[in-house]
């Protein structure tokens, strides 16, 4: 056995070592070249240009300063952050309840796999078709509004419209909660039944089990997944654009109009806004990674 192993190990080593190394380097070179050309360099121009005067190309802090001096631009960040908070917390809670119901709620087995398939589809269903689906459902002539009107209640007389903040939040929830279900499911699987049984044997109530056992264990993954949801809606553009035609000033929509070269647009501002978004996203992803590491201690 030992002899065979030696022979096998020796065979590749017989080649000159430097040759092999250079080959391996070459093998991943296309990836780095590709990334440099189509991802790293174009993205870095955003950083460079947010510190450049857009006509003279001189170095300047003006674009960044303009962000902090403009009520309108700060407002656009705030709206984006607000909608991301609302839909990540709302979608997170609803998604968790749904996933927990399907996995541990005593429902028939097939419910779990169907839920997972639905969620795989729904979390990828965004943009124009999604906006249209909700227009068909919740616009003044939509299906659900029609039903409610037939019951004598028209939400549009009570301050509801699809094309504002809360309407957009309802639409965003459609891709938010399925993502929550998909990502949180392994964490719920990681909750061992023994822990529930043990706490019941020790006389804990259901509330105490959640308060002292399940919630503390799930907390990092709940928070981590919600951060992922936050990023998911923070970068969204197409859905809002298709739904409201750009009437809600999300930061992505403002960037779109600043950069498109509209009359009022200022590319420098657009790049600075984009840089700010990347900073927010990096913070979110860092938070996610840190919490993910903490979760892995519990889930095998």
């Amino acid at each position, binding site marked *: 056995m030992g002899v065979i192993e030696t022979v096998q190990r020796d065979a590749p080593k017989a080649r000159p070592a430097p040759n092999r190394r250079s080959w391996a380097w070459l093998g991943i070179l296309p990836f780095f070249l590709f990334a440099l050309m189509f991802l790293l360099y174009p993205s870095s121009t955003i950083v460079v240009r947010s510190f450049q005067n857009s006509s003279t190309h001189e170095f300047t802090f003006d674009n960044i300063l303009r962000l902090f001096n403009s009520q309108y631009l700060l407002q656009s960040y705030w709206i984006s952050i607000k909608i991301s908070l609302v839909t990540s917390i709302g979608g997170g809670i609803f998604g968790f309840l749904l996933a927990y119901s399907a996995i541990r709620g005593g429902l028939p087995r097939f419910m779990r796999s169907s839920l997972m398939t639905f969620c795989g589809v729904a979390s990828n269903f965004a943009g124009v078709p999604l906006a249209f689906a909700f227009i068909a459902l919740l616009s003044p002539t939509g299906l659900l509004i029609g039903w409610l009107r037939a019951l004598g209640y028209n939400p549009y007389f009570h301050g509801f419209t699809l094309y504002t903040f809360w309407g957009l939040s309802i639409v965003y929830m459609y891709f938010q909660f399925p993502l929550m279900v998909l990502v949180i499911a392994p964490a719920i699987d990681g909750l061992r039944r023994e822990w529930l049984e043990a706490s019941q044997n020790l006389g804990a109530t259901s509330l105490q089990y959640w308060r002292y056992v399940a919630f503390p264990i799930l907390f990092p993954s709940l928070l981590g997944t919600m951060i992922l949801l936050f990023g998911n809606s923070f*970068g969204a553009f197409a859905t809002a654009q298709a739904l409201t035609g750009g009437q809600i000033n999300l930061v992505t929509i403002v960037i779109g109009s600043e950069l498109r070269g509209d009359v009022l647009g200022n590319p420098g501002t657009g790049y600075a806004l984009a840089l700010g978004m990347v900073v927010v996203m990096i913070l979110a992803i860092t938070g996610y990674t840190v919490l993910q590491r903490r979760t892995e201690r519990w889930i095998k």
Partner: protein
Amino acid sequence: MKRTGVVWSWFWMILGILYFFLPLLATFIFSLKAKLGVLSFQAYINIFSNQEFVYNFSASVLWAILTIIVGILLLVPTAFLIRLRVPQFRSPVEFITLLPFVIPPIVYVFGLVRTYSHPPLLIVDSPALLVAAYTVLSMPYMYRSVDTGLRSIDVRTLTEAAQSLGAGWGTILFRVILPNIRVAILSGAFLSFAIVIGELILAQYLVKPAFAPYMAYQIQQKAYEPAAMAIISFALTWIAMGVIQWVGRGGPAQVGAGH
């Protein structure tokens, strides 16, 4: 106490099902109303007999296929070598493949346009740039799928066995490794397909024919056809996901890990 738990489970589940299906139901019913007074598939007939739709849609399918091919050619050898030969590059490569998550597409596309719209790099009009951009967008999914696939097989043993039988690197990669991780590659491929078909921003700002921009434009022009298109695009996403689930049955990285 146990009973109320099950009741709540059903409650949340039914709420989820309603949230999921009501918008689709509304869209579907709406799409059938193209003929006054009766329900018909007229809108669907209009769509499929429309040259513009066929043109834009087949363009999207072509972009998707090219994106998948480029993605596989680029990422399979990279992930393979990182696992086998140059593990020191794991972190930078993982970081790069995660970047498209962090950079919003609207920001990314402007970076692209700026970079490639003046000499010597005047390729902003080339379809190749669009395919490259789609490849970047689908990279997080493709790389992760491939990497998961490689993790589930014994890359080193397979490679050494192939080598000792006299196989060259091309043979190893495409006739040994690739067939062994085809399930993972397929799942990455269908995710990429769904992403490319639904993508609005890249094709819109790079001014290329594609399904999503065409649909966005149709929404402003027509009533029933966009509804039918939303249903079609949903069905396509569904098929892509269904195929992933179907080919992934029994694979180690499957969702149904609860048993």
